[in-house]
């Protein structure tokens, strides 16, 4: 049986003997249990490494762009309008929400989150 990328579930099961370190918190243990992620990293190492190189160039461009007072790039509000300029394929189901958030900034994100978690409930019969 294989998943969408052709990796065998048997390999996943073979590698599932990782049980983390004694005394770790549930969160830490879950991080260490990232067996599927490690397997993908191992199998796709060249592509992942290449991508990391490309992202390094993008980060460099961002950092060299217009540094702010702290040495970081432009402020959130100054850059917010450039964040979403490409179409979003179907994903985990939040792309539309993300588009709105990126355009309007952190304040809008907080408002949307509030709206999702609170106001909808208030308006339900």
């Amino acid at each position, binding site marked *: 049986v294989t998943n969408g990328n052709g990796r065998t579930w048997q390999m996943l099961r073979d590698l599932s003997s990782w049980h983390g370190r004694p005394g770790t918190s549930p969160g830490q243990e879950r991080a260490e249990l*990232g067996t599927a992620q490690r397997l993908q990293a*191992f199998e796709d190492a060249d592509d992942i490494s290449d991508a990391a190189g490309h992202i390094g160039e993008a980060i460099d461009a961002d950092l060299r762009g217009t540094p702010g007072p702290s040495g*970081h790039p432009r402020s959130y509000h100054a850059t917010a309008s450039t964040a*979403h300029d490409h179409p979003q394929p179907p994903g985990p189901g939040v792309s539309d929400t*993300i588009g709105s958030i*990126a355009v309007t900034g952190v304040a809008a994100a907080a408002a949307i989150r509030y709206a999702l978690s609170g106001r909808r409930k208030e308006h339900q019969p």
Partner: protein
Amino acid sequence: VTNPDVTSAAAALRALLTEDLDTYRRLHAGLGAGQRRAFAVALTIAFNEAAVRQFGDDHTPASIIEFVAGARARYPRTGEAVPAEDAEAVIRAALGEDDLIDRLDGHAYGAAQTAMLFALTREDNDVDALLASAAAQAEDYLQRRARR
């Protein structure tokens, strides 16, 4: 016993996360095949650990959406290279939804992880501790793989 491939990989990752991009470019370009594999594994482990540190056990989809949107807005050139849903998927995968990475190819997976690891560590001054933990786990993982 220290795996020299992991040591090289961790050095490259440290250069990236400390914003020493010239050194990162040099170290990353010099990675050999085994080092690139170690780099990918260490990157993945460091990213997973950073995501768990950031979002913990009580994360919500909205908190991940907000974080990704903020990161992409703050680093627009990087955001252009990483679709929001990829960034969200790798974070959610790190938090337990492993199946979300199935739809990502290696390049998309690596790009999203690298960008989000960078973003996750901007407010965390303990990059060295994160990388030390990731390197130790990467060594262990690669040793177990080598014994298979």
